């Protein structure tokens, strides 16, 4: 959707073990083991750079700060998101899997619950990720955002169900057991395709 012929890539620079934040105005973005690493785009080929940029933009536009962490020892979305929420100064985190599935979580909720869940990865585009970031930031500010509208498509099953399973398995393969979450700094670069 950018101006023609530009595409961005992202690399994640590890800056050390992820710590619990103290700022009440921050949202943590918790990434799965293979996000912007083993994989570079979601199930519908949306570049991970764009996913991250839009999430960050959504948070920024609400005047809230963001911290990005990579979770390495699980590929379970609820676990990733909940861990992110516990690290977040506001208690709010967005968790994202490589295939695009995302969730907004809060630290006091049971792990298997959530504030908002976006299970249909094939239907998540840049605009939706912006809204997810924005809503997470608004929760952090104590506001009451309208939940991001979720879409549904009966024909997603024949097209995406098996690929989603494959991506899920691949992501599981990237799990590094017993390694804690690390804080990362996303570095975006412009490439002219």
């Amino acid at each position, binding site marked *: 959707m950018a*101006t023609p012929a*530009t595409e961005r890539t992202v690399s994640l620079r590890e800056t050390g073990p992820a710590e619990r934040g103290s700022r009440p105005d921050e949202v943590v973005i918790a990434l799965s083991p293979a996000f912007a690493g083993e994989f570079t785009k979601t199930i519908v080929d949306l570049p991970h750079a764009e996913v991250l940029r839009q999430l960050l933009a959504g948070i920024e*536009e609400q005047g809230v700060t963001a911290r990005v962490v990579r979770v390495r020892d699980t590929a379970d979305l609820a676990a990733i998101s909940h861990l992110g929420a516990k690290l977040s100064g506001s208690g709010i985190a967005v968790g994202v899997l490589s295939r695009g599935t995302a969730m907004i979580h*809060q630290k*006091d*909720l049971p792990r298997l619950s959530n504030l908002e869940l976006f299970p249909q990865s094939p239907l998540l585009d840049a605009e939706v990720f912006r809204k997810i970031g924005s809503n997470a930031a608004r929760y952090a500010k104590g*506001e009451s955002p309208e939940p991001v509208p979720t879409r549904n498509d009966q024909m997603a099953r024949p097209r995406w169900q098996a690929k989603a399973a494959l991506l899920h398995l691949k992501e599981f393969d990237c799990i590094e057991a017993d390694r804690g979450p690390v804080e990362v700094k996303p570095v975006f670069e412009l490439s002219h395709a």
Partner: protein
Amino acid sequence: MDTRLVVGVDVGNSTTEACLARVGPDGAVTYLGTALKHTTGVKGTPENADGAVAAVREVLARAGATVGELHTVLLNEATPVISGLAMETITETIITESTMIGHNPATPGGEGLGVGVTVPIGELLGDGRDSERPVIVVVPHGWDFDDVAATLNSAVRDGVDVVAAVLAGDDAVLVTNRLEKRIPVVDEVAAVEKVPVGMLAAVEVAPPGRTIRTLSNSYGLATVFALDPAQTRQVSPVARALTGNRSAVVIRTPTGDVTDRLIPAGVLELRGAGKTLRVEVDAGADAIMDTLARAQPVDDVHGEPGTHVGGMLAQVRDTMTDVTGQPASEIAIHDVLAVDTIVPAEVRGGLAGEVALEHAVALAAMVSTDRSRMQAVADQVAAELGSSAGVGGVEGAMAVRGALTTPGVDRPVAVIDLGGGSTDAALLSASGETTAVHVAGAGELVTKLIASELALDDREVAENVKRYPLGKVESFYHLRHEDGTVEFVDEPLPPHVFARVVVMTPDGLVPVPTRHTLDAVRRVRREAKRRVFCVNAVRALRQVAPQGNLRALDFVVLLGGSALDFEIPDMIADALAPHGIVCGTGNIHGSEGPRNAVASGLVDAYAEEPG
């Protein structure tokens, strides 16, 4: 006379109540129990018999009595009251030729005022551009915020005097955060392609928490656009429409205009007291109600055909025809209640889905048909139960009689029955005479006002907002009640209520889908109740009070379902207090609360004069 078992039955609009009593030879009454059923059919029609019989059977069963022991069933003479509701907006804001973008995006960027010529971003870096004059950049859909910022920065570096920007997407904060020069940016202008190019325009963004100062001021506009007095007069609606916004864009086009006009809503014709009075609906609720008061008692109300109000009343009549089977021509509207309200509506001709708060009038109308058929109901009840049954008294008279059993009440006493469709009042004078009235407007109108003012699509939510107190879920472990108290919970609250304004229903917390704060929702709720119930209480009491003088009333007893509401009785009591009236929720026989007044009144009347 020997001891007799009698049942009083009150057929109401929605519920049918029964009250079983033993009447001794001396007329002493012993109450044995009560039962409550849904009313079957429209009140006052033969279909009521089913509900009445069911209520009688239940009250007997509860007391362990049989139909065979029953002496008689007493029914109330009920005026079938049917009500209708309608609402019309009476103002409308129209923008012609895209002169103004006055919407309030949630997050505009930068601050200050920029005045310049509109230029599309695509042409900013092209050759032959005019680098002399200040420029307001217009950015269409599909532009990434990083690219917009980079383009603007490089244009500024090239010497272009960029003073403001108007964006299609929701990117204002992101763009301004990345600009080297700070300018005001307005975003979420959905129809940005309709913004005229090459025109002088002004963009203003106020700091967070403030509203714009220049574009909402007619002389500010005159200054910015160098207008003469005649032109200034012309743009004053623009200024008015922008008042209270945090951001705005005004574009000066040769013929553009914003109008804030009254929709001709039509004339309401009130016939009564031997005269026919006319009032313009767009004059507002107060004017309508004043005129109505001059036409009391009202025989019929008509709306000017072909106008909104004509349509509204026709719709009410059609509903009545459907339920009563009476031809529309025979249906007389005996009362209306007009209420001013505010409805958020999208501005016609707007470029960004601008919403203006338009004025509207809500009308509740009420018909009382003269076709009460309670005798037929009584006959049918008698046939089904094999006992005798008859009409034991008129509803209003029976209600005050029942109300009189509330401890601490004496004649003269007035009752107010707060229903769903109508508010009813009756007075029992010191000398034992009763007068009764029904006025239009009650619980359903309150729900409708709440729904439209809060823009709630879901009637269930509006109904809940009306019925139960509010709260705000501040964390998973605590919530703040509307009175400011905080309640902590042990189990985390469910995620769907997190950070939301909620209604505290008996079934749990229900989120209210609104951007309004708790205080705003509470204000809307209380105002709706005040405008309907308090206004109607006073209005109805005036109609039954001697010479319309409220001071002549001593005791007012509230009855009916709404008398159980958590705040309405207090609000009415407050409204009546200046008139020196003792007002409170009834407690029939000192035990039944505001229920069962009519049914037990029937029994009492019978005990005094066994028919």
